[in-house]
């Protein structure tokens, strides 16, 4: 794959060149927190770890129209939304890019590929900043992701002193590097990548990679889930912010003769997630829903897809108001088993 060096002082120009043909998003600091937002010329806030929101906001937006309709009982016309325009996301962490690859396995699966996701994915360029320093709640390595991972990215930037090593991972990435050729130096710096590959990741000790699925299934009915349920608020913040959670709901809204069917994020942590007409609910308790979240991520998704539905991004570690995050719960389960 093509490698180039970008001198650090030319990073801003490189970004400008990205913004030329696309809306450019990246991490920015807003009122003290770091969020992915449209950069609009602001300098990106590249910090260890991840912004509060994930790329999901731009690839499967929280709410989006599936179609609009207009008419009455006996005549209805549907209108599908306009195709998305090009976007580029700068300063993505490797785990987030891998998360897109994980979610794509489900959303792009044929024969019913999710068309709006597919279009957005095709119009999105992912420019990843490999990690020289991990965030406080990161544990990527224990779920098979590396701080220098290139999966899901178009271009990976490996930071080094005074410059970045740029690697084009996809054909789209290659064309980005070609269009930015003026700033790039064809030299290589293998050490930049090696450094990121060996970045220490703080919480890996808490999550055993070997046999995770089997170990979890073995404790699926342990009373500790009830203890977790007492603590959990059922707010679903963990799943809304998680880059690998993809559950959504469909709903209709009407104003007079016009209306819209939309899709929007949903969460298995919500109490009526699986409640059926007539009152039957296969996940009737908070404990059963928490178990579902962990088993889905670490056992059931991997059973089909061969990879975890968790990339160790650490968001749940920083956001769950009661500390019920993936690494924490796994370490608690190990503890109660001992």
């Amino acid at each position: 794959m093509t490698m180039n060096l970008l001198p650090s002082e030319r990073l801003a120009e490189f970004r400008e060149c990205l913004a030329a043909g696309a809306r450019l998003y990246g991490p920015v600091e807003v009122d003290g927190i770091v969020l992915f937002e449209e950069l609009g010329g602001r300098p990106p806030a590249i910090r260890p770890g991840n912004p509060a929101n994930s790329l999901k906001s731009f690839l499967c937006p929280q709410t989006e129209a599936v179609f609009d309709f207009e008419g009455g009982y006996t005549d209805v016309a549907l209108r599908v939304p306009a195709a998305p325009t090009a976007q580029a996301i700068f300063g993505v962490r490797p785990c987030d890019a891998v998360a897109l690859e994980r979610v794509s396995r489900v959303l792009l699966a044929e024969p019913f590929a999710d068309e709006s996701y597919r279009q957005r994915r095709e119009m999105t360029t992912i420019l990843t900043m490999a990690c020289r320093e991990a965030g406080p709640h990161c544990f990527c390595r224990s779920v098979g992701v590396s701080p220098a991972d290139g999966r899901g990215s178009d271009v990976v930037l490996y930071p080094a002193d005074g410059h970045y090593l740029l690697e084009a991972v996809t054909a789209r990435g290659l064309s980005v590097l070609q269009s930015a050729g003026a700033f790039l130096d064809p030299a290589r710096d293998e050490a930049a990548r090696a450094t990121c590959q060996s970045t220490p990741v703080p919480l890996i000790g808490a999550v055993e990679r070997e046999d995770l699925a089997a170990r979890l299934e073995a404790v699926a009915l342990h009373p500790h889930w009830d203890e977790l349920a007492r603590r959990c608020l059922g707010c679903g913040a963990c799943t809304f912010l998680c880059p690998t959670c993809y559950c959504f709901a469909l709903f209709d809204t009407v104003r007079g003769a016009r209306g819209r069917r939309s899709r929007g994020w949903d969460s298995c942590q919500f109490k009526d997630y699986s409640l059926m007409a007539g009152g039957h609910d296969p996940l009737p308790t908070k404990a059963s829903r928490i178990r579902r979240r962990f088993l889905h991520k670490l056992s059931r998704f991997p059973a089909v897809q061969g990879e975890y539905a968790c990339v160790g991004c650490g968001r749940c570690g920083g956001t769950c108001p009661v500390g019920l995050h993936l690494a924490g719960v796994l370490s608690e389960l190990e503890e109660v088993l001992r």
Partner: protein
Amino acid sequence: MNPLVPQVATILAIREDTPDVRTFTVRPDGEDFPPYRPGQCAMLSLFGVGEAMISITSTWAPETALEFSVKRAGRVTSALHQAEPGHKVGVRGPYGNSFPVDQWVGHDLLFVGGGIGLAPLRSVINHCLGRRAEFGRVDIVYGARSPRDLCFRQELFESWPKVPGASVQVTVDAADAEWEGPVALVPPFLEQLKPDAAGTFAVTCGPPVMIRYTLQALTRLGFPDDRVFTTLELKMQCGVGKCGRCSIGPKYVCIDGPVFSAAELKSLPAEY
């Protein structure tokens, strides 16, 4: 094409089967609905209300309309019960796997239905009866809460019993003044009938409790798990394996089901 966008379709006819079940005959306004197999479902929707997954109870033939038997249960299904012929609905599908009919060729068939559960069975029964020569005996056992709640009466009492080598046994949980037939819950009624398990495939569909006890009864009657089929019902939103809603263990009921053999069911976690 976005799989979540339905075809606009017109309700051609509505039949009132029971106080809370109506059968809708529906035809897409544009392109024909794709060919479907017995046991498959479709997302039926009212614009402005929402969608519901409904079994296609008709049997596919070129250029025929779709039939859906809908029980009034919640928002969408209640609103459908308010609809009239000529009204527009959305329809997308067909979704899900189907009954493995070809695997049954040369065998006797036993269908055990309860309530609205006869809707998916009806499509497979009519499909098999359409290929009558390929199967042995076809025995149909059906029950509903009361005589008023029996669906598909015309077929139950007139067409199916007339088919050579077919039998229909109907029971109700509670009789009314006119009812002269058996009064029993489906599972014990089935056990009394003592169907011959040897060389027979059994298919059951109905409310969750009925399915549970029917599966147990079939086991006691000697049906091996790989010759018993049923359908699972889980809440659905997308119907196409994306929204996560209907997952059970590693399977999605909307694409990997709704038809499962009793053997497959046993390998899934008891979250249904």
